[in-house]
């Protein structure tokens, strides 16, 4: 289990290493290495998702490892409370950024092996702290440094606990 201690409270995450081995391993590697400490949830859209894991306060982007394969075809759906890998238009471009779905976003699921239909790979879920996620999703947002939907007040992952189970 991975626990993000945010300035709004802890969010506990369970990874699905069976269905999404590469994404789960990738996320665990960043978490264990302390990469997420000091990063913010930089894109927050109520009724959609909260995205983080790539920026520090002031919208400076962190350098990350190589991109990974997209495992969106694993049968997992982008349901409320699930974590999926964020990426660019290239399906296989995910690195450290992830998002937590705050709605059942079926349109993000895998529909086919073309760039447009690949979808977003779900690799885990929030098992505790959805109240924290819901508090974050309703925060006030603005535009910062060319990015839209950035929380007015920084929402920071202050530390990360990784427990073996």
């Amino acid at each position, binding site marked *: 289990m991975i626990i993000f201690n945010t300035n709004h409270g802890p969010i506990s995450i369970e990874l699905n290493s069976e269905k999404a081995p590469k994404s789960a391993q990738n996320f665990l590697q960043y978490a264990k290495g302390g990469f997420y400490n000091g990063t913010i949830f930089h894109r927050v*859209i*109520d*009724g*959609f998702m909260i995205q983080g894991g790539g920026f520090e306060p002031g919208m400076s982007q962190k350098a990350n490892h190589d991109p990974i394969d997209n495992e969106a075809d694993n049968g997992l759906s982008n349901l*409320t409370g699930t974590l999926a890998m964020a990426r660019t238009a290239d399906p296989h471009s995910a690195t450290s950024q992830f998002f937590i779905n*705050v*709605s*059942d*976003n*079926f*349109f993000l699921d895998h*529909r*086919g092996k073309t760039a447009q239909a690949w979808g977003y790979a779900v690799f885990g879920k929030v098992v505790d702290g959805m109240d924290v996620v*819901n508090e974050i*999703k*309703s925060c006030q947002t603005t535009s910062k440094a060319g990015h839209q939907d950035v929380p007015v007040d920084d929402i920071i992952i202050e530390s990360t606990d990784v427990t073996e189970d």
Partner: protein
Amino acid sequence: MTHGVHKPLIFISDLHLQDSRPELTDALVRFLAEQRGSCEALYILGDLFEVWLGDDSTCRCANRVCEALRDFTLSGSMLFLMHGNRDFLIGEHFAAQCGAQLIQEPYRINTAHGDIILLHGDSLCTDDLEYQHFRKLVRSAKWQSEFLAKSLGERKQFAKQARAQSREAMATKTEEILDVNQQAVLDYFEANACPRILHGHTHRPAVHSISLEQPIDGKSEATRMVLGDWGTLGWYAVVSDDEWELKRFRISS
């Protein structure tokens, strides 16, 4: 709904039926056979057809759909048909042939989960000013009666041009602009004093939970359920006494 057990209500939209995609009509015919008699009503929330140039302009798939819908209503289920942005010219004549009742958006229904407002969804895409202008024009009674007075050939020519222009315009619009405007959604909840809406149009099937600043109808969270378009998957919503759910099924691989 105040007493007793009710059969569920079923909702679909954005099938975009056309002669060149018979598998979609097949899927609808199968779907209707499965739902036949087991639901209180079926609501079709727009874009049943890819294009509709008037009730006098028929295609093979329209005849098949009409027969299947009529058969469906003979089972005792009611059928409600709402216009979409592609088939807004479906008239009373075709609706009557199908055994359907045409409904205008926003259409409010009362369910075990409280009132739900039904709409196609294009009216919520307020960021697309050009489209909203076009929508206002073609939804006016004057434009429609003038258009329907033209010959079928002239109407076909117009539709061809409109599609080409739309394709051109879509290519230059960013993805965000084609989805609904979040503020328009919040305003909609408030203006209608109803925290539940169900629509299609955007082809982004989802069940959105949105926090409200001021509770509506005692709810601090509003729900916007979005039906999906039919393609490799088919989508439908079910509202019964104990569930309000978005469901999907496989049409083809």
